[in-house]
């Protein structure tokens, strides 16, 4: 049911863990739905120099988190803002339709961690505002696929 890449990132996830004194932390999802993603960012001069994650969830949630961290590590904030859920899913050679919400969670976790960074530092990030995290219905996204 999963691509080899998903299984690889599930079995050997990249960047698992926490960052002490992270510049931005984003947690999305909820235990009721069975997945929570927490992302930690280290940001220096607008560049994401380090990123770590912790995830409670299914195989594709773990793989999506892992892939998302790879996609943004070493990138600028602006580049990280361009990462969509589709990009995460494509980088994993696709996810089953019912699992697309996992890639959405990954995208959201990045954005929420960036928002946290923005709030902490006062650095404004274009295209990011708090209201986008009000909607808990991330799972709705699967209908689009």
């Amino acid at each position, binding site marked *: 049911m*999963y691509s080899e890449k998903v*299984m690889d990132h*599930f*079995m050997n*996830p990249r960047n*698992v863990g*926490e960052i002490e004194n992270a510049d931005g932390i984003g*947690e999305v999802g909820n*235990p*009721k*739905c*069975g*997945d*929570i*993603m*927490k992302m930690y960012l280290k940001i220096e001069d607008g560049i994401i120099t380090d990123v770590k994650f*912790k*995830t*409670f*969830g*299914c*195989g594709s*949630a*773990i793989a999506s988190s892992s892939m998302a961290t790879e996609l943004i590590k070493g990138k600028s904030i602006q580049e990280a803002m361009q990462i969509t859920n589709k990009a995460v899913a494509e980088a994993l050679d696709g996810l089953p339709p*019912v*699992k697309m919400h996992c890639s959405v969670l990954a995208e959201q976790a990045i954005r929420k961690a960036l928002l946290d960074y923005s709030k902490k530092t006062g650095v404004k990030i274009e295209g990011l505002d708090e209201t986008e995290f009000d909607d808990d219905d991330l*799972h709705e996204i699967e209908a689009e696929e």
Partner: protein
Amino acid sequence: MEKIIYMDHAATTQVRKEVLDEMIPYFNEYYGNPSSIYYLSNFSKMAIDKARERVAKAINAEKNEIYFTAGGSESDNWAIKGVASKLRDKGNHIITSKIEHHAILHTCEYLEKLGYEITYLDVDEYGMISLDELEKAIKNETILISIMFANNEIGTIEPIKEIGEIARKHNVIFHTDAVQAVGSLPIDVKDMNIDLLSMSAHKLYGPKGVGALYIRKGIKIDPLIHGGAQERNKRAGTENVPGIVGLGKAIELAYSELEENTAKLIELRDYMIKSIQSRIPDVRLNGHPTKRLPGNVNMCFRYIEGESLLLSLDMYKIEASSGSACTSGSLDPSHVLLAIGLPHEIAHGSLRLSLGIENTKEEVDFVVEKLTTIVDRLRQMSPLYEKKQEGK
């Protein structure tokens, strides 16, 4: 195929060699249609007759009370829809439980759309229905009580004989979905006051696609499948002769070895539960500690999610099952785990290991060892575990 460790016997079982051997001639040697009148067909007719006798004997029924079907789901559908339509003029109320198999629950939901009223009984923390609540739920319009013999997920065995007594006392038909119980537990339909009983062959080392419905003499239900005169006009369609032969052989074997296999499985089951509990912290046994199916182990591992557990086990070719929402494609975890009162986040982390007669203590040790590593790895990744560690 690579060597696997199969611990998903509640999902299905392999066909035993003795069973397969008896089935094979009915594919290409004695292939006659049992409804035909010539010489060749006598073999098929006799084979069905023998299987019917074996099935009847296993549950202490009479031969003419056994009707072959295409499996457990058909038997469940037939029992419920058959009673509902037959007794439409008598009443429209059916009592069942919240932890039934979907073959029962979805059939009941369908009947609700047709105007029937369904009471879904609650269960306690072990998954046991309350006899008091059952009796209180019965009213003049009640036409059927359908309570499963043993639960497919958590293995809890319901008080079937007592339910049967209550049903009989109030003159209500009693159906039990015994798909998980047949072949694993002693069943006496007479002593237990059972009117209708569903079974399936592939759960007891028989073939898939064949089952039976026991209909007690005197109980009238409408057919589900209309057509030819097979199964004494009650279930149309040319009989699945090899399948029926397989069911007959499998059930006979299961009951001739019941005592020995039950003892072995209970020992293995309890050993596995204890091993897991002693090696992995924050686990919970789901279901009743003793009133449970001999091979059923169902545990929740806190702070992790069931599908990731299953995927990791599959890396070692350990085949098991989960009540996790992520394995079913739905968002809610198992309705059974929610019904026994587990919060969503704990229900998401469930694992069912259903043991079978070919499993060994060595296999159990191997699985528990791998499980310990896997649970630890996934917990290290889990933000919920991190919160727990921080004492939040």
